[in-house]
């Protein structure tokens, strides 16, 4: 386990470093002057020269890269161009709010997705299984941003139950005010993912139920509940964990969309804001932070998988 962890951490460090190079390269090497991009096409030459001086854009690229990279290592993400505040605190504050959305969503997706999948697999061919299968089919293909529009239309505009957009800090609005702003974003986030996870759980559970070890357990005369719970379920959960790990990537993408629509002040909305306003320090820092979070989440999933499935540690193929 020690060697496994060491290898994983080394590759994580490498990916993060390579990502800083990639992000920096995309932002700086693409055609067009950075100062032009920030100031717009009608900027005067003097204004551009002044900004280039201020941002150190006249230095060679490797000097600029090193300044930015060593800053990040020291926890300094530079200064936001549009808000004139250090980008680091802005990014981490937004990350915290996104993390609330993401963690509630993951818990819901895992719990509801796996439960529905098991229900389908143990009730194959019944009306509820068919309804779930049809639902999964539908929910996987409908884009998140359209769900956002639909739930706003139904729950905010027509029924008036929930606020359409915005965010109230826990300290100001109390638990209820805070939660009210989370319900619609979270439910939009989880719909497609629950469909996906429940579908995968159904098929892996079915595979387990049809396996020989389940047959053997039944032949021993164990009660059906014990067979399902002790023999089929643990084996069916492994693929489900892999799927949830893959879904973290989709979830992060969904958060960008959902935060933008619901005007929820998280990291996803901040990235879109940074792009719209060409706030490069905010954009670059935000991308690195997302990469780090995503890599850590994948690492956590891998560790969980390795703990549950000892074979993987020996082979080391993942």
């Amino acid at each position, binding site marked *: 386990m020690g060697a496994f962890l060491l290898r994983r951490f080394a590759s994580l460090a490498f990916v993060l470093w*390579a990502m800083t190079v990639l992000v920096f390269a995309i932002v700086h090497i693409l055609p067009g002057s950075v100062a032009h991009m920030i100031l717009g096409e009608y900027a005067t030459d003097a204004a551009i020269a002044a900004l280039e001086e201020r941002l150190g854009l006249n230095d060679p690229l490797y000097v600029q890269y090193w300044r930015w990279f060593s800053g990040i290592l020291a926890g300094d993400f530079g200064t936001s161009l549009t808000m004139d505040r250090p980008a680091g605190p802005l990014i981490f504050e937004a990350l915290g709010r996104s993390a609330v959305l993401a963690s509630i969503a993951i818990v819901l997706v895992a719990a509801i997705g796996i439960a529905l999948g098991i229900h389908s697999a143990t009730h194959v061919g019944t009306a509820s299984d068919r309804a779930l299968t049809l639902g999964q089919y539908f929910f996987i293909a409908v884009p998140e941003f359209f769900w956002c529009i639909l739930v706003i239309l139904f729950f905010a505009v027509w029924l008036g139950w929930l606020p359409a957009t915005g965010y109230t800090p826990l300290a100001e609005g109390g638990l209820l005010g805070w939660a009210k702003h989370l319900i619609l974003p979270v439910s939009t986030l989880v719909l497609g993912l629950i469909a996906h996870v429940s579908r995968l759980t159904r098929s892996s559970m079915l595979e387990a139920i049809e396996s020989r070890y389940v047959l053997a357990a039944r032949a021993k005369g164990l009660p059906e509940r014990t067979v399902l719970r002790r023999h089929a379920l643990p084996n069916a959960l492994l693929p489900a964990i892999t799927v949830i790990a893959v879904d973290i990537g989709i979830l992060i993408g969904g958060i960008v969309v959902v935060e933008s629509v619901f005007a929820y002040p998280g990291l996803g909305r901040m990235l879109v804001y940074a792009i719209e306003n060409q706030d490069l320090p905010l954009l670059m820092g935000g991308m690195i932070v997302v990469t780090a979070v995503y890599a850590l989440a994948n690492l956590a999933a891998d560790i969980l998988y390795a703990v549950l499935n000892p074979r993987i540690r020996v082979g080391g193929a993942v």
Partner: protein
Amino acid sequence: MSATVATPAHRLPRTLVTGLLVVGAIALLAALGPWIAPYDPDAFDMRARLQPPSAAHWFGTDEFGRDVLSRVLSGAHHSILMGVGATAISLAIGVPLGLIAAFRRGWTEEVVMRCIDLMISLPPVLLGLLILAVTEPGLWKTILAVGLVYVPIMTRISRAVALDLLSEDFVEAARARGEGAYHILVREILPNAWPPLIVETALRITFAILLGSALSFLGLGPQPPASEWGLMIAESRPFIAEAPWIGLAPGLSLCLLLIAVNTVGEGLRDLLDPRLRGRGHG
């Protein structure tokens, strides 16, 4: 699944046929869009702003009095181009990379696969955002970005398939005949690798349309006054209470297209590679 259903002579899955019919119908409407649209999709008519669906305007009008049906029709080709174009790009780059990595092994494979690892260290939407962040947005840039996002998965799949095939006897035979790398990859491996690649391609089109329209919903695709469906939905947001049809019409059209394309993909999977059932997404 559909094996027990009485199927036509060619034993095509029923889902595949249904999906193909719907996709074909949408593609036909998209191609004929400019001719069958009842109004000019970009023509303002300030006297007819925000009108609900009626006999004159089946899907209503938007905030500039533009006919929503005409805009939905004229925008259909964007989504189809995004799906097909981006998938074609990811195939054109990913398949050769995967085949070469599998054939060469050693450091070539190492370099290719590490680059792929790096590309998937950002979730798809974020990688798309990053690629589009610093360029002027537009339809073709969105297509290119989405295509690049899906290069890694195509590379991985074609490498895995090629690795399997490289140990087959017919490849051994070709090697023994002294055939070169090009011949082995293009004449021996590729023709045998197509079933899993076709399945992946078909499923990938759904996600390419999803990602492309999400990016343009975020403002990183075709720019106004384009009638791309994701963009139309984004533009409809301020009027959601008074004129929900502006967003519902392109949204429901997009859902119909996505479900139909996905059905084709799953039908192909059932037909060509039943083992892969239940995979996909992302």
